[in-house]
């Protein structure tokens, strides 16, 4: 396992070494691959780039995009951009919270769903919008959420 991590990080570092300001891009690649930024990888990265671990964590925790815990199997993103907010985005979040018993930023106990509150999915014409994995649902009504969720796995 440890060896695998070293090789992975080494490849990334080699790829980006010659470029200045590479830390965020390397973190993007790690998260793309794992879905979050595991601590072991950050440790390894800190040694290879010769930057303190604190500096890596300061960057990870500053940006909303980076996650420190593994995401659920399905990612639910409920849009809270202005258009969606006006058209009841908060109601959708409350309903998902009620059904799955998780707060935004949390994963269900069975690891099935991760709930995220996002700022704008860029399809304001369809407000209110939610997205599960890659599938976008537009003009969502509160009553439809159970159905939508059940299409993507169990809701127990």
């Amino acid at each position, binding site marked *: 396992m440890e060896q695998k991590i070293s090789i992975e990080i080494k490849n990334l570092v080699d790829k980006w070494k010659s*470029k*200045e*300001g*590479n*830390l*965020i*891009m390397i*973190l*993007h690649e790690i998260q793309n691959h794992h879905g979050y930024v595991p601590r072991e990888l950050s440790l390894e990265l800190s040694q290879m780039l010769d930057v303190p671990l604190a500096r890596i964590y*300061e*960057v990870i925790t*500053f*940006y*909303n*995009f*980076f996650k420190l815990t593994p995401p659920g199997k399905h990612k639910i993103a409920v849009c*809270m*951009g*202005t*258009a969606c*907010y*006006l*058209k009841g985005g908060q109601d959708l979040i409350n309903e998902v919270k009620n059904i799955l018993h998780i707060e935004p930023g949390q994963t269900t106990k069975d690891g099935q769903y991760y709930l995220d509150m*996002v*700022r*704008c999915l*860029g*399809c*304001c*014409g*369809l*407000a209110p919008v939610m997205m599960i994995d890659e599938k976008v649902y*537009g*003009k969502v009504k*509160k009553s439809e959420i159970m159905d939508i969720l059940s299409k993507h796995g169990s809701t127990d």
Partner: protein
Amino acid sequence: MFKKTILLKDTSFSPEDKTRDVFTRCLDYLREKQLEQDIQVVRVADSGVYGQGLVMKVLPDATLYVNLKDEDVTRVIDAAAQNKTIEGLALKKAPKQIRIVLRNCGKIDPESLEEYIATGGYVGLKKALLELTPDKVIEEMKKAGLRGRGGAGYPTWMKWKFARQVVADQKFVICNADEGDPGAYMDRSVLEGDPHSVIEGLIIAAYAVGASKGYFYIRAEYPLAVERIQKAIDQANAAGLLGKNILGSAFSLDLEIRLGAGAFVCGEETALIASIEGRRGTPRPRPPYPSVKGLWDKPTVINNVETLSNVSFILLKGSEQFASIGTEKSKGTKVFAVTGKVKNSGLVEVPMGITLREIVYDIGGGTISGKAVKAVQTGGPSGGVIPVDALDTQVDYENLQKLGSIMGSGGMIVMDEEDCMVDIAKFYLGFCVDESCGKCAPCRIGGYQMLEVLKRVANGQAKLEDMTVLRRISQAMQKASLCGLGQTAANPVLSTMKYFESEYKQHIENKKCPAGKCSALSNYAIIQEKCKRCSLCQKNCPVEAIPGSREDGFTIVQEKCIKCGRCLEVCKFKAVSKT
């Protein structure tokens, strides 16, 4: 090239998307009539029209057909082939729109360099590199009167000139594509629909300031935009439009993508620079401005996506044509994402100087519900709310600022009578509090304190003096914050208090929310005459605030009620009232 292109999309909200079926039928019909060489039908992901059934748009005339029945499809193709329009079926064109930034979006294949070149692409770059000196290019921008489209409206030529004047061994250009304003997606559409126009603009900017390296700073949340820009950069490199000695000139430029990671403050120039350098995206005091000391302390010019798309247009068509559009101080067009309670939501590109009323009513079609428009919000979290009686204002940088809002990047949210202004202010301020980087105290502490006061107003626990508190904190934030985020965060609060003061007072003095949005101030009650005693409300009440039985009827105990609204939702007989 095809004589006509027909864009096709099923925009209805039913789960069955008919686009594919209709598309196949169109292909069959074209083959049958031997029109395959003249007309192409393209399935599009987003037609800019929503909830209007089957939509076909004929290009280049831009005739739009909506709510088409199955039999209409072949008629549209016939009409297009004969260069006709089916009167009665075609929607009236919106002549108020002029397309400069969106000139190619939806018309060309964004992944094809050849198609971009066929529209006159990279001709402007060639002209700049081979015929004009960098100073002449800056002169062209000055004559065109182009101002930055990212929000503040700083003249583009001045930015370039400052960076040009500084002597340095290396300079940088950056395209700011970190569109983070909730409710706005103009840049995304351009990046995805016409990536080369932005790249061309960035190369021209680099030539004008003498930069040898450029970056695209794009939101990681826009994977398709990232993919298309990368592809376009590769194509441009292969075609000699990027890299060493571009088009045989002495000018060289390398372009690279850097991803944003979800921080609104990174739209601020100095924060964006910190992020590209691989650090936390916190701003620093200015001066020195990035034009003098920017990325890695080198002179840097940062332009927004829409600005750069305008740049390539100006070089292609000339500054006179660009300057002929718009008002005296604001030239050209502006793309707005018109959303909210408006009937036709979508992107519009309008000449500067158009009135808000024309955008909301003539193009947007008024509100969905038919209710009166209450206000229009522009500029996102940094902007303000414009009341309905100011709708005849002409849109330009100065006018919007006078009203207490800003042009911003182009979000335009239409609100009707059901929207509470206190709630809106709370929403935007909450956004800024979330996104505050925490570096300077006025923004970090001021924003939080204001939000606490607003929450009290919305809950009916505020005093009238709190309005003064809000004003005083606003002032401190505007004057003392380090960057644009903090300086403008109070705008939504100030503008709603200015135009809708009585609404605030109603919340504070009468404990009422006129729009019925602030749930803590609403009361639910059962209308006994309508109640059929089905007990559904009782079963659904999460706090057992509805005692009673099917024989004796039900009532809501106000002291227990948490105003969740479930009883209202589940009642099939409309027997629950909300006041």
